[in-house]
């Protein structure tokens, strides 16, 4: 069981409330998206969940254990791949294991076992500068997975990629998630991406940011190739757009 529960979290900076009374839940193997405009407090919420920031009020629980303000149990991936240029790909990927105090050799072996699954065969001894953008992002994702196989926070992980690479990454991502069962919260401002990948979508809107709507995507996984061209997809999109606009007016 790996359930994440965020309970009534609020946080302000310099006396200004950024997020207010946020409660979300993520269940095992679920992919939940957090959709909202830029500057709406998504990243602040992520920093609270990952334990980097202490909320003013509220709590974060992982498997009914409180992890509020305690980094190290929920993994975190950013838009930039954040691979260290002076480490080989395998040493980059194995970094979370090394931080946890594992020996270099066993950390490399553990990481190496996943290279094929993540489409990174043969890149172990290469440096990040020798990989393509998509490959770097996959390596970053593998690092995130090795950091915590319970819960991952992905902050706009694919937004820096070009459209074609991005849709290839989406397909690959859904496929890999079938195999590795990682519960995920996914920040995005791309509505299509959210519908395509998520089991549920939370909409974060307003100032300070609140959860204004929760939408369940009832489309079986793996999703059809042309899911984003179907009427069902469009009706989800309409629903989301309406929810975002309601809050604005």
């Amino acid at each position, binding site marked *: 069981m790996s359930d994440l529960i965020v309970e009534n979290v609020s946080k302000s900076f310099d006396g200004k409330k950024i997020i207010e009374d946020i409660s979300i839940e993520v269940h095992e193997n679920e992919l939940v998206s957090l959709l909202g405009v830029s500057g709406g407090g998504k990243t602040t919420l992520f920093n609270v969940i*990952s*334990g*980097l920031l202490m909320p003013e009020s509220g709590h974060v629980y992982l498997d009914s254990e409180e992890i509020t303000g305690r*980094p*190290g*149990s*929920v*993994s*975190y991936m*950013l838009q*930039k791949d*954040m691979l*260290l*240029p*002076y*480490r080989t790909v395998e040493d980059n990927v194995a*970094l*979370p294991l*090394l*931080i*946890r105090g594992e020996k270099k050799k066993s950390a490399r072996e553990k990481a190496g076992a996943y290279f094929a699954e993540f489409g990174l065969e043969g890149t172990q001894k*290469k*440096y990040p*500068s*020798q990989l393509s953008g998509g490959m770097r992002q996959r390596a970053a994702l593998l690092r995130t997975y090795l*950091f915590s196989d319970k819960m991952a926070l992905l902050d706009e992980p694919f937004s820096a990629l070009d459209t074609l690479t991005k849709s290839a990454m989406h397909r690959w991502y859904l496929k890999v998630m079938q195999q590795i069962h990682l519960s995920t919260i996914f920040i995005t401002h791309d509505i299509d991406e959210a519908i395509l990948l998520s089991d549920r979508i939370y909409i974060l809107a307003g100032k300070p940011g609140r959860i204004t709507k929760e939408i369940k995507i009832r489309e079986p996984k793996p999703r059809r190739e042309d899911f984003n061209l179907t009427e069902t997809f469009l009706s989800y999109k309409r629903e989301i757009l309406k929810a975002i606009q309601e809050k604005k007016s």
Partner: protein
Amino acid sequence: MKRKFQNITSKLWSAAAVAVILIVWQCVSMAGLVPNYMLPSPVEVAGAFAGEFPLLMQNAKVTLLEAFLGLFFGVALGFVMAVLMDHFGRLYQALYPIIVLTQTVPTVAIAPLLVLWFGYQMLPKVILIVIVTFFPITVGLLNGFRSADRDMIVLMRSMGAGKFQIFKCIKLPGAMGQFFASLRISASYAVVGAVISEWLGGFEGLGVYMTRVKKAFSFDKMFAVIFLISVISLLLMKLVDVLQKKCMPWENKK
């Protein structure tokens, strides 16, 4: 392949320029435009270099030993200072102005004082070299440490990394480029520092040899020793380059 070719041609051009200068110099000397005792011809300098070779090597050994010792302790001091100043913000504020101040005092001015305090042996020379070489290292490393990627540090913290791990995995390797740039400067400072400190008091070394031949008006030998000092500096810088390639393998694979 093309790059290699360009590299060779650019070297060819600089070699040609050096050759032209030497030929002109030789012609000027042979034509008697400048009196021979003021400016010896390249051939005479080469002759002096060959004739004095054993003596030059013997003195060079002393100078190099001083330079290496000074550089070693200078780098060590510079490194420790940079780490401490990066770690403790107050220490940075307190020490940085003083460190800059040490660099505004001319080497020639402190060298005689050091000789007075520490004698004519190796110690004052090594101390002088430490003073001139630690500064570029400290400044370079501090810059490198401070330019570490904020987001990367946040990511490391989210993984539960401590300060030492962040230093080891991000700050230190990130500052390597700056460190080697500084080391190249410090290496050439070390040789020049050693020679200057020998001018101002000592029994052995290229600086001592230099003052001796100057007093004897043997300008051919003077040029020979100048040439040797340049070669030593160049070799040291080359050594730093080789070291850098070894220590930063990720730079070669782009």
